[in-house]
Each structure stands twice: as C-alpha cells, then as structure tokens.
C-alpha cells in the first residue's frame, strides 16, 4: 500500500465533512443540505456522547464508532471529522509565511549529514506564555513546524476539570471547549451574518443582471456576548493554528486530549524506522501536531492527529511506516520502547479519566434528574431575583416615564385637532400623529423557554452542548443564542425569545437537527401537544383597554386559539373585543407575544415552563351557521 496517498484521502474526507458542516450552519435559504445532516453530525464526538448518555440508542452511537476508529488508527477523527480541526488546518495553510505543502518543502535545508542544521531548529519546547508570544509574533521562514514537548499538566487538567464538571451536571467547560460546538458558534455568530451581508450586497447587482435568484435576507439579530465568546475562541484557535498547527488540539481541546489517551491503545500507528531514517527532519517540519521527536526518532501517538503529512514527505520512503503495534510487541519489546516511558503514566491517567466519563453515563441516568432539577431551581431563583431587580428598576423608570407620557397624551390630544385642521387645509407639514401611550407594567418572566422537545429546562441544560445549530436553522428566528439563561452550567445554550419571532406551529426543524439530542426529534403532532410555556395577559397594558381601539394581534397569531377574543365594550362606533386566555391549549409558541404591539412592555407574554407540559387538543365544535352557503347572493 502506498502510504503517501493517505494524506490526500484524509484531506478530501476533511473537506467534505467541513463543507457539509459549514453548509448546515450557513444555509440561510434552506437549500436541502439538511437531508444529510444525520450523516454529517453522527460522528461528532461530544454531541454524540451526550446524546448516548441521555438515551443509549444506535442512532447515538457515533462516538463509539469514533472510539473504535481511534483504537484502530489513532486520532484520525481530529484530522477528518472534527470541523474545528479542519478550520485550523485551513488557517495554518493560509497563514502568512507558511508553506505547508510537503511538495514545496525546499530540499536545501537538509544539511549534508542528513540532519537539520542546528540554526534552523527552534529551541522552543512545550507550551508557555512566552512561547505563545513567540509563536504569535515570530516568523519561521523555512520550517513551519517543530517538535514540541507535550504540556501534559495543562491538557490533562483541562480534560479532568471538563469531565468532572460534566459529571456533576455542569456543561460550563464542555460547552465552551467542545470543538464542534465552538465551531458552530463561530459559524452562527460570525460567519452567518457575514454571508447574509454579502448576499444582500450582491442582490442589487444580480437584479440589474436580470436574475432573481438572489433575494434580500433579513439581517439576523446579533447577540454581543455570544459574538464575543465566538471571537475569543476564533482568536485563540486562529493564533495557535497560524503559528503551530494543532497546538490547540493538543493543549486545550478536551476531545483531543481524551482521544489522545485512547490512541495510546491504537493498533496501527506511524513509526520511524531508525535504521532507514536519514534524519532529514522533513517529517518534523510538516508535523502540525509537533509530535515527531527527531532526536529520539519517536512519535508521540497521543498527540498525533493522523494527518499523514509525514508519510507523504519522507524522502527515504521506508523510514516512516504504519506499524501494527500488537504484532510488533509480540516480535519483541525493543521496537516500540520509545513511547513507553511517557506512555504508561498517561495511560493510567487516561483510563481513570475515560472511566470517569463512561461512568457518567450510568450516574447521569439516575443522578441527572436530581442534580439537574436542583440546578434548575437555583438558576430559576437567580433569574427571578435578577428579574426582580431589573423590574423594580424598570418600574421606577417607567413611573418616571408616565409623567412625561401624561403630558405627551395631552399634547397628542391637542395635535389631533390641529392635525385634522392642517390636513383639511391641505398642508401636510408638521402633522403630529397621536401615538398610543407607553405601557407601564413589566412582564414577569420566571423561567427561560427551552425549545419544544427538550422536555424540561433542566434536561435541556444538561444535554445541550451550545453548538447553536438550532439557532442557525430556526426559520422563525425565535431561537437565539443565550448566555447564562439556564445558569452558569448552561452557558451559551440557546433559548426561545419572542421579541425576535414566534415558533412556527408546523415547524420541527430544530427537533430534527439537534446533534446532541437536547431537543428530541418529536413528530409534528407530538410537538404540537407540548407546552413550552404559557401566555400571560396583562389587561392594563392592552391597547384595547388603554386606548379603546381594536387590536387582537395576539389572537391573530395564536395557532390553537388559546388566546381568543371576547366582547369587552360596546362603543357608539365600534365593538371592542379583548383577549381571553385558555392555558389548557396554549403551546407557548409566543405568537401572541411577538405580535403584541404595545411598548415598552407587552400586554401578553409567554412565561416558560421549567418542565414542559402536555396540552389538550383544541376543541372542535361544528361550524356556526352564520354563513349562507346557498347558491343565492345576499346582495
């Protein structure tokens, strides 16, 4: 077998996975890439693991496949499936001063003796802040990569803390560090708005050319905190990868570290044959993981991401080979000895960490409800408290505002007459249109609203990895990036926010696509029987009550008529109807809240159900016979 071609195969697989993943997040036109979403997302390690722990089903076994692959071939996941890994390769490839392609490696840097000239070899070993500085601001013109000592303390600490927090029901570290979710947030918060902006800039040009293929797309709501977190992630990942390939994967990424431990068991691994090796150092220079130690002629398998660049570049051809380590160990202990010293300690550590994560499956099942529920109560309280604080503040402002409002109303009252007079006179300048007065009673929201299919905010919070794919695919824009809506454990997890849209009654897009199973794939009928929250009506804010004019926007949008209009007041020229709530059939879609026109506070809003409830089907009475369907005309 020609191992040189493995690199090309790896690159193509990586490109396919990366493109499909990116399209899933960026497809603002719904062009059909979601048909293969299941296949693309199946192998994503953390979402799949979380999904499996929540419900051990075959559809969630992607991470097991990854583990099996890792035990066979090492961390090839990191170089193919992981989209953040591929992003780093792309950044690294196009970073200034870098030539990654082995074909372009100049041969004249190989010293006559077959080793790298000492001047060319940087003395840098391992991760430190000074090395980060040097990596960031120094250029290496000839050799891009070099061997780095592993920073075992940092990488195992991060893995340990991430796993520990995850076991106790907190996604704090996992949400922030899972590579798939990190990339998802970068795509959702940064790239998607850019893509939409470019699209909208191209629309006028396309229309001049006579094509209507492009259309203006509504600008997505921007969430500063979520954007800031994405930018910080991108800066960290970008800087490290621009200077030293996969340093992030081998120092920060908990998935990389975990798979690194597993790969210490791997059967097939790359090995340097010390007898055939000329010591030219080309393999080291193309190793973006920095795991090839040319001095010892050994490869740190826990940090090798399986990119196969080294195989493609080795001039001796035979010096680098893929070895079956189990067969090798039978043949004699001497051959694989290079790794053993470092390996054993790490292996034991790894078994402990890995076992702990596995055990989490069992504990979560029973412990989850209790821990998570506890968490929910706390976060709920926190939110209420915070809400209370804000509200009292707002109430003061609002009260302050009312005085002015009163004046405004008087002024407006005067303006009606003058306005009419002016219109009659034919002068249209300076017409003051009477405006309805601002509302004064704030909404009291006690719980965030998690999407339908998430069962409860606690379950959602314990299973969502905050990749924000649901935010990207939500056609109604009602799912938005959150920050600490579910408490610190649920950092970055999305919520439903009815200021931006309402949940489409017949839509199940987020339920179908969620890669971690945080939003269960309910059928449309099942989804329509779920109550994620209940609408609450504030009569004093309602425009029908304050202005005695017809509205009913809330009832208009209500898909079940849980908000119905009932007679309120008969005035000489109008019959007023006012909303009446039937909470038993309210699904909490937020159509009422989104449509409610009052400012600054809504007259109707949805308060989340910490635990989703089942709703009754709307009662279907026979049609009232108010309409004459005979063949005659009533006029």
């Amino acid at each position, binding site marked *: 077998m020609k191992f040189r071609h493995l690199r090309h195969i790896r690159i193509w697989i990586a490109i396919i996975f990366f493109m499909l993943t990116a399209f899933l997040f960026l497809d603002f036109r*719904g062009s059909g890439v979601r048909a293969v979403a299941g296949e693309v997302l199946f192998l994503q390690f953390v979402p799949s693991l979380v999904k499996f722990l929540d419900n051990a089903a075959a559809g969630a076994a992607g991470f097991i496949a990854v583990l099996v692959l890792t035990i066979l071939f090492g961390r090839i996941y990191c170089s193919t499936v992981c989209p953040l890994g591929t992003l780093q390769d792309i950044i690294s490839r196009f970073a200034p001063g870098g030539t990654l392609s082995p074909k372009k490696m100049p041969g004249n840097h190989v010293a006559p003796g077959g080793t790298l000239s000492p001047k060319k070899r940087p003395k840098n070993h391992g991760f430190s802040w000074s090395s980060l500085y040097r990596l960031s601001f120094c250029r290496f013109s000839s050799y891009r990569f070099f061997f780095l000592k592993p920073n075992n303390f940092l990488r195992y600490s991060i893995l340990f803390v991430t796993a520990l927090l995850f076991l106790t029901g907190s996604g704090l570290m996992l949400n922030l560090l899972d590579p798939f979710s990190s990339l998802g947030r970068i795509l959702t918060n940064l790239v998607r708005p850019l893509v939409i902006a470019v699209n*909208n800039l191209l*629309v*006028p040009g396309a229309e001049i050319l006579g094509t*209507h293929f492009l*259309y*203006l*797309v*509504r*600008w997505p709501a921007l969430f500063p905190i979520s954007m800031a977190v994405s930018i910080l992630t991108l800066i960290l990942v970008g800087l490290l990868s621009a200077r030293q390939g996969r340093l992030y994967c081998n120092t920060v990424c908990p998935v990389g570290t975990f798979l690194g431990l597993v790969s210490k068991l791997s059967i097939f691994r790359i090995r340097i044959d010390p007898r055939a090796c000329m010591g030219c150092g080309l393999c080291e220079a193309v190793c973006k993981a920095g795991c090839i130690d040319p001095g010892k002629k050994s490869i740190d398998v826990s940090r090798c991401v399986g990119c196969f660049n080294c195989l493609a570049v080795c001039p001796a051809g035979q010096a680098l080979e893929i070895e079956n380590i189990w067969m090798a160990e039978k043949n004699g202990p001497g051959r694989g000895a290079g790794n053993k010293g470092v390996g054993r300690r790490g292996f034991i550590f790894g078994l402990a960490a890995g076992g702990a994560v596995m055990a989490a499956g069992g504990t979560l099942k029973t412990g989850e409800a209790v821990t998570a529920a506890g968490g929910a109560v706390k976060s709920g309280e926190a939110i209420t408290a915070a809400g209370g604080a804000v509200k009292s503040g707002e109430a003061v402002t609002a009260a302050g505002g009312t005085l002015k409002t009163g004046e405004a109303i008087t002024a407006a009252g005067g303006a009606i007459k003058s*306005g*009419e007079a002016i*219109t009659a006179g034919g002068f*249209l300048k300076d*017409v003051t*249109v*009477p*405006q*309805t007065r601002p509302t004064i009673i704030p909404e009291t929201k006690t719980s965030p609203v998690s999407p339908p299919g998430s069962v409860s905010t606690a379950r959602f919070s314990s299973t969502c990895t905050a990749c924000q794919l649901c935010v990207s695919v939500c*056609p*109604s824009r009602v799912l938005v990036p959150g920050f600490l809506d579910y408490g610190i454990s649920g950092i970055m997890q999305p919520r439903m926010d009815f200021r931006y849209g309402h949940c*489409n*009654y*017949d*839509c199940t897009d987020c339920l179908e696509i969620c890669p971690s199973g945080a939003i269960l794939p309910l059928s449309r009928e099942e989804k329509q029987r779920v109550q994620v929250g209940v609408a609450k009506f504030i009569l004093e804010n309602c*425009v029908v009550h304050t*202005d005695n*004019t*017809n*509205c*009913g*926007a809330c*009832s*208009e*949008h209500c*898909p*079940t*008529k849980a908000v*119905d*209009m009932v007679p309120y007041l008969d005035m000489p*020229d*109008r019959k007023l*109807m006012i909303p009446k709530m039937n909470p038993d059939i309210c699904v909490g879609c937020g159509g009422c809240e989104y*449509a409610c*026109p009052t*400012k600054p506070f809504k007259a109707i809003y949805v308060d989340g159900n910490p635990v989703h409830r089942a709703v009754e089907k*709307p009662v*279907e*009475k*026979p*049609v*009232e016979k*108010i*309409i*004459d*369907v005979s*063949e005659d*005309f*009533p*006029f």
Partner: protein
Amino acid sequence: MDRRDFLKKTISGGIAAGSTLVFPKIDGLWADSRGDVKTDWDLVAVRGGEPGPMFDRAIASLGGMKSFVPKGSKVLVKPNIGWDVPPERAGNTHPALVGRIVEQSLSAGAEVVTVFDHTCDNWIRSYQNSGIEKAVKDAGGKIVSGDSEGYYQKVEIPMGKRLTRAKVHEAFLEADVFINVPVLKHHSSSMVTIGMKNLMGAVWDRWYWHRNDLHQCIADFASFRAPDLTVVDAYNVMTRNGPRGVSVNDVVSMKAMVLSRDFVAADAAAAKLFGTEPGDVRHISIASGMKLGNMNLQDLSINRIKL
C-alpha cells in the same frame, strides 16, 4: 436600484395608477365598443364554480383582462399568503385563483407579473405550503420576498389620519397595475379580513397599525393607492378562529368570488357573503366616509353570475 431610478419608477407608476383612478370607466368604454355586452358593471359576483373558471367568467364580464392590463405593463398581484397553512385551511388566497390571474395578466400582455406578501408565519414556509409559490411560477409569474426591510420604502400617506407614513414594499410602488386578491375570512382583530385588510401585507411595520387604532390605519393605508382591481376569493371561507384558523373544521365551501374596481364595494359585498353588515366593519365604514369607495351595494350595478 439607486434613488433616482426609484423615484422615476414610483412617479411613473403613480401616474399610471392615478390615471386609472381619474378615468375609471375609460377601459370599460373601450371594451364596450367591441360588442353589445355590458361590461361597465360596478361589481361582479360569481358562484358555484372552481376558482379559475369563476375568475374567467367574472373578468370577461368586466371587459376582459386587457381592460385592466395594458401591454408591457408591470402587474402586481397581491394575494394573502400570511400563514403557513395548506390551501384547504383557507388561511391564504386559493393558489388556483392566483395562478389564473397571473396567467391572464401575462396573456393580456403584461411585461412582468410580481407576487409577494409580508407574511406573518415564516415566509418561505408560507409561500411553499400555501401552494401559491408553485402556482405563480407555473403560470410564469415572479414571486418575490417580502421578508426584508430592505425591500420597503418610506412613503407619505397624505389622507391618513393615524397612519401618515409607512414603509411600503417596492413591488407595490413600482407596479403599473395593482390587482388585490384577498381571501375572505374571519379575523380576530378586524372581524373579517377582505381587501383593505390585505394591504397590511404590503407594509413593513404592522405593529404600528395595531397600536394606533387598527381600523383607522387600515382605511388610511387604503387611501394611499387604490387597487385597479380587487378579486375577493370566497371559494373556501374560514368562518371562525381567523385569520390563521385552527383546523379545516373552521372552513365552509362557499364557491364564490367578488370582483370590482371599487375596493370598498368589493369589501362590502364580501362582508355580506360572510354574513356581516358592511357598516358593522369599522374600516369599511371609515373608508366609505373618506369617499374611497361606495359601500352601499344598492347604489351599484351588480352582475350576479351562477355557474
């Protein structure tokens, strides 16, 4: 499109629209000269057929599509596509009717027929599931998005009392001929929704209307640009739980259609079909009071057709 181009188009569109307002009978007279059949009806009501054939009969009795659509004109057909519901739920205008109007406009010589709505539910889903997107495309029309504020231009509404300015879809401003194709249905906010209420889908900020005396705003906006023709779809009629409806049980089959150049008259006749007195629908009586049209059906010459 730059600002000057836009102004040019708006003004020329306005002149075309204005001329049909000032000389509403001119096309009818012209059509008359071709035969003895009376074509100057104020209103045509049809019953008992499928949407397409009913429209064909009704438009023929108004002198044919050519009396509305000059050769080379830009036509806007504005159906109600507010909701993500299938045609049988009658939440949106019947796709067969929209398709037929597009077809007729094109064969009358229209340069382009544009269709859009500023939907309430997600626009892509509403366009698709209403069946209207397919019907328009099959008929050769152009269906455009109404979902981005970038498509909406600020206009003044000189006769408006509460609504004096609004952001209006550019397709609405650019069209030489404007055909309003509402569906008749129950409405939680305005009792019934017919033609004038359907114009709410041509503006960006609906919240303002709801906040500032909805019925007055509906009538105010109707004064901005009168449709050259209103075609009310009453084939399937949602009798309650409107405007979205809860299930097909809300719908009765009425197999009716109303056509008129006078949008107030069209709304009045459709209200009667629904079982409501036009005067009880406040925006109809306000519009009538503003002299935008005639809601007194007994004053009008009505062609009643049964298929």
